């Protein structure tokens, strides 16, 4: 709990995050390079999809992280709402554009992958539609936050929308499943046996780890900026900038 209180102090967070970023960012870059080599060069072609399968190394991590970032944003928003913690709102504000970009990336890579394998860029399938709705939710949260001139007010309004959205995401997913669905079921399973071969699976898992670490580093950097912008009239920021 002590750690939690110390963390909620913006200057303390600013220093801590500044020190932590290299420890997250460089492993992310290194892992990303290794995973890209293994996945793009070493891994064999798929017997049905050929080299097309390799877009999986961007598509799957970004799709997974788009959901992860929405739930992290919701957790940050809930913490900010319940404890009236300004830093948590800054984190939520920092995640939103990153999550929206990842959602967009998942949609675009999915479309590029879909053309050669399914013969179409887009279908109104359950997963695709829920991902699109997720993008709209991200956009709504960003727009609502910016629409308020008063920042704490915008933060709290965006927090409500984020939390309502997180309840709605599974409902949206299951409601769109009412249509017949084209997207393959998940091939990577944590508990059971995975449906893809180890030579393809390992680079994918490494890439997912690399993407996750990269997102963490990105959010830390963006939160630092956000904190500076929000605290720009505070003495510690003025001292930091003038020194």
């Amino acid at each position, binding site marked *: 709990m002590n750690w939690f209180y110390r963390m909620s102090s913006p200057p303390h967070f600013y220093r801590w995050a500044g020190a932590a970023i290299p420890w997250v960012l460089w492993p992310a870059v290194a892992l990303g390079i290794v995973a890209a080599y293994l996945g793009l060069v070493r891994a064999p072609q798929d017997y049905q999809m050929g080299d097309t399968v390799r877009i999986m190394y961007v598509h799957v991590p970004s799709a997974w992280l788009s959901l992860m970032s929405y739930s992290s944003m919701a957790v940050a928003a809930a913490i900010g709402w319940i404890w009236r913690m300004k830093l948590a709102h800054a984190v939520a504000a920092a995640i939103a554009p990153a999550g929206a970009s990842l959602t967009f990336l998942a949609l675009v890579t999915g479309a590029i992958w879909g053309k050669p394998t399914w013969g179409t860029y887009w279908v109104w399938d359950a997963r695709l539609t829920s991902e699109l709705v997720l993008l*709209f939710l991200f956009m709504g949260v960003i727009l609502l936050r910016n629409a*308020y001139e008063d920042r*704490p007010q915008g933060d709290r309004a965006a927090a409500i929308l984020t939390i*309502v959205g997180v309840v709605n995401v599974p409902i949206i997913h299951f*409601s769109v499943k009412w249509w017949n669905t084209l997207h393959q079921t998940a091939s990577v399973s944590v508990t059971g046996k995975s449906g893809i071969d180890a030579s393809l699976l390992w680079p994918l898992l490494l890439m997912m780890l690399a993407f996750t670490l990269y997102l963490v580093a990105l959010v830390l950097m963006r939160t630092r900026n956000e904190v500076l912008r929000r605290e720009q009239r505070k003495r510690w920021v003025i001292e930091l900038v003038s020194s």
Partner: protein
Amino acid sequence: MTSVSLSRVLRAQMLKEWRQLGRQFGATLTPLLFFAVVVALFPLSTQPSPERLATIAGPVVWVAALLSAMLALQTLFRSDYDDGSLQLMALSPTPLWLQVWAKQFAHWTTSGLPLVLLGPVAGYSLNLPAEANLTLVLALLLGTLSLSALGAMGAALTVGLGQGGLLFSVLVLPLMVPTLILGARATELAGAGLSASGALNVLAAITLLTATLTPFATAAALRVSLE
């Protein structure tokens, strides 16, 4: 001090809403007229052969109902916000969520309920099979209640913003997707002569969930707007 009683709050809000209907008849009627116009646009923009219309009848009625609900709901709290009644509602000893619930229900009786009654008329004009009418009415009854609850939340989030109209739609439409899908699905199944009870049950579940849970979010959003 007034006691916390749902029936009293509901009665007061109903009275207020129906008095407003008497005073601003045109403003209340506009969303219904909008519904009728949107429904009429579809036969005009495609070949109005009976078979073709029957296949799009369900989706058209539902999209029109959703758009009409958006129009009716985006200013739900605007006048209360402008004249300060919202401040009084927030200060009253009666929980705000209860008042929100009563207000959105009272508003629904003047905006959602007429849509439920207009639904079969629209369905008839689009050649929806007569057997599907009961399902359409049931689905609209459930669906408009859920749309009202979600729309009220969006209205509460944007009431403090000068021109929140467009933002309101962007916020609320994604949340309304499940209601739209299941409502249209039920209507479609009934139109094809199949059993729609599955879709109706899930729609009922969504309605119960939104109608009971969103008033808390709406009340919280109103407090944010009043800050």
